[in-house]
């Protein structure tokens, strides 16, 4: 079973009905894969050593990318909005505006997209090349459960690490924002943060954190699915990595849309 590649499907000479049928088949495949994931999550011993290794690879190795992006994000957001707010005489609201934008929307979505690009493509390519070189078959024939060792650990690692990375990225974005504002005013660090948190509500941070858990889960799951069922030789490795990023990114936006609707209903 090959992984989904939306771009590939649409560029092939298939009828729209044929494309829709293929996409539905892949969605069914992904649903079955999700079932297999949960079945293996609660069965037998958990591969804790591999889970820690995957946390290190997905989390620690993403720190530099998230750090640079986060500081630039906070800096650019501040530099672009400061003149507008200053013109309205509302410059004092800038820290709070940055806080709300980053915590609720920009942080989770941008860092999740970066995570999908870096970690998702890595998982897709790695599992796919393991499939092509028969390493996954080798695990299966030695009565070792590859789903448990390769998929459960990776999906759990992305689910745990993305919220932590988003939290870390949010903090660095505030730092970037402070540096941007500091260049134009003599605002203190303490004042910046007290203004940022002045209208802080638990309802701002809770839905944002919950959605990052789902983002992490689906990035790990989709990327693993793309790699695990890759079967078209070395060409399939590139295609799996590409599909992992494209589909994970689309799903991040879709989940974000759903999260916004749910938050509106609840809050």
């Amino acid at each position, binding site marked *: 079973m090959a992984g989904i590649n939306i771009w590939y499907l649409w560029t092939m000479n298939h009828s729209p009905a044929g494309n829709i049928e293929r996409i539905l088949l892949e969605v069914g495949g992904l649903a079955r894969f999700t079932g297999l994931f949960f079945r293996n999550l609660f069965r037998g011993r958990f591969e804790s050593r591999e889970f820690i290794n995957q946390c290190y690879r997905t989390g620690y190795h993403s720190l530099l990318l998230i750090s640079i992006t986060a500081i630039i994000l906070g800096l650019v957001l501040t530099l672009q909005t400061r003149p507008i707010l200053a013109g309205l005489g509302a410059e004092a609201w800038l820290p709070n505006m940055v806080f709300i934008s980053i915590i609720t929307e920009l942080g989770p979505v941008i860092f999740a997209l970066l995570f999908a690009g870096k970690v998702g493509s890595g998982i897709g390519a790695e599992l796919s090349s393991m499939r092509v070189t*028969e*390493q996954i*078959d*080798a*695990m*299966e*024939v*030695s*009565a*070792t459960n590859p789903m448990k060792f390769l998929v459960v650990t990776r999906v759990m690692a992305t689910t745990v690490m993305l919220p932590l990375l988003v939290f870390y990225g949010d903090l660095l974005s505030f730092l970037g924002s402070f540096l941007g504002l500091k260049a134009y005013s003599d605002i203190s660090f303490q004042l910046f943060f007290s203004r940022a948190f002045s209208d802080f509500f638990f309802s701002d941070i809770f839905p944002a954190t919950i959605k990052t858990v789902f983002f992490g889960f689906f990035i790990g799951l989709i990327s693993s699915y793309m790699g695990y069922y890759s079967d078209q030789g070395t060409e399939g490795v590139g295609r799996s990595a590409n599909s992992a990023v494209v589909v994970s990114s689309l799903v991040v936006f879709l989940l974000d849309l759903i999260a916004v609707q749910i938050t509106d209903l609840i809050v």
Partner: protein
Amino acid sequence: MAKERILHISNLTKSFGDNRVIEGVSFSLFSGENLVMLGKSGTGKSVIMKCIVGLMEADSGEINVFGKNVSNCREREMNEIRTRIGYLFQEGALYDSMSIRENLLFPARRNSRLKKFTENELEDLVEKNLENVGLIDAIDKMPGELSGGMKKRAGLARTLMLSPEMIIYDEPTTGLDPFTSDAINDLILKIQHEYKTSSIIITHDIKCAEVTGDRLLLLHDGKIVAEGMINELRSHPDVEVRDYFK
């Protein structure tokens, strides 16, 4: 004394879409025997092996391994059978993120039969198996640092960790120079005698078949067209069979 039949396949068929790859294949493997399966590429040799270990499902026919019908086995039963079968993949299929030592420890740590072994005993077993395949010096190397022949030997050492009763060699000498091929052939015979294993050796290397095989099967277009000792096949009435050994 009649030898014990450890594998019996009857009327196996397998298709991929409209392409019928295996058509009514039947054969047996007896204990202590090296059975060589010859045939050109694409004749379905690897597909039969993958059906035996449950990596593929046959369309019809019966596969009995160690007295159990593979198609009726549940996952747990299939895993029990798998621990008794070693599978040497064409390229070794070593886990490239692990050193050779870790490659060997990986299946051993997860196998219920080896649970009683302490970590030190498992380490000793790793060293013993690597010594047997002449690869003890590469114990802490990564698979990427090994040559093709070394990868196959490391793959074989990993297979031996679970003390299999039957080993499937998927093209053990393909892509190797004549000297390394000879070394692998000798190793197959050594394993057969020291570990008392039965083996199925898939190959299109006539020399490998001649040296390692007790009995040969020739596959053509998904069917077994000839069976016997190499001398019998060389003087087979069918010209195409004789031509294969020229």
